[in-house]
């Protein structure tokens, strides 16, 4: 994951979007759908192509202040890396 610098700006990949309506925490894409856990949703919801990876991590550290900040950083980078592999997330 050489592309995942703290300054890159993640966004949902082409063809990947949230379902409308009540099931908003479900991500749909050409091959299927993912229903996200609260924390995964908290990460992806911030992937708007504006915020950088570092900014997202910082915001999550504030939201989840009880969690270990090192773990948060690790989890965010790992999760975005996995979704990039699946072509659900791109970086600007």
């Amino acid at each position, binding site marked *: 994951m050489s*592309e995942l610098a703290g300054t890159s700006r993640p966004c949902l*990949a*082409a*063809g*990947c*979007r949230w*379902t*409308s*309506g009540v099931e908003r925490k*479900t991500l*749909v*894409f*050409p*091959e*299927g*759908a993912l229903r996200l856990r609260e924390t995964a949703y908290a990460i992806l919801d911030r992937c708007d192509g504006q915020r950088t990876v570092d900014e997202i991590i910082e915001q999550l550290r504030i939201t989840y202040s009880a969690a270990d900040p090192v773990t948060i950083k690790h989890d965010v980078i790992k999760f975005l890396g996995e979704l*990039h*592999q699946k*072509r659900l997330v791109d970086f600007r």
Partner: protein
Amino acid sequence: MIANPIALIAEVTHRCPLGCVYCSNPLQLTRSKDELSTAEWQDVMAQSARLGVLHLHLTGGEPLARKDLEELVRFARSSGLYTNLITSGIGLSQRLKELVNAGLDHIQLSLQDAEEYSADLIAGAQAHQRKLQMGNRIRESGIAFTVNVVIHRQNIDHIDEIIALAESLGPQKLEIAHAQYYGWARKNALALLPSREQVRRSLETVEAARVRLEGKMRIDVVVPDYYARYPKACMGGWGRLQMVIDPSGRALPCHAAPIIPEMQFENIRERTLEWIWRESSSFRKFRGEEWMPQLCRSCERRQKDFGGCRCQAMLITGNPRATDPVCHFSPDHGLIEEFLARANGNAIHQSSESWTYRTLPHKARLGSRESNCY
């Protein structure tokens, strides 16, 4: 409690400007006068969204043969469905913008081969150059984009060139899908089935390309199931995840299901989608494990492949309840071996000169006047 379907495959028409010899549409195609109306399709979409369907796959035939496609897409999107258009690209140029504006989520464009002459021969139409132009336009539009190429003996040795061509069009994904031998493909199987050696080489080529293109273009492969050890999980299991609606409104658990002679299918003109999914005898028939022969019922893979494909069992063994004969445990597996031996032996003689192009009944050509049923 039966889980809801997650995908609806809408065969909105069987009309198509191409006549691909590998088409898996039924031999008895629906005529345009029998197609569902705009309002009827919209009703199906609204019902499916309420039932929990997430994905709508608009296919055919060529969906663009319908003048109301934009209207259908707009309605589907407003119903909350993720909308995928499976197309040859022919007829798309004037309509792409409007379809994207209507909320289309994804386009899957088919190519037949890497090189024009061969591609057009497989399609039975001059289409290749127009498809390439459309590929570029689709990429430029920014919509999510997949290129799909059905693989068989006539193009399998060009896989390297096919991958390079797809790469030049810049889709997010390339789908290398080995032909599935139903409908017209089954009719032409002796001209289409590749040899074991060709399959092996092609899979190696694809694997190397997959590594090389990682992060740039994803490559998905649908393996040729006649050469597999285990059957495919057809439709993800009968009546388990998906529903097909054919152009005339018949609801099918699998698009090939009408070849099973004992079956009656409900039509959405007469029943609700929910009733058909939960209550109809056709959707219940091979759902779950009750119907399975002992061999499947005691197999640890039964939750993976669900006994394989009922239509394939029907086509090859004459018994839709049999274990899919592709499975090497099947007592009928010898029939597949025999067929492969015949196809491999025939490789030199059976070529494009003797195949049958997919045609609507009123267009039937000389030389393809065999009976239009199995």
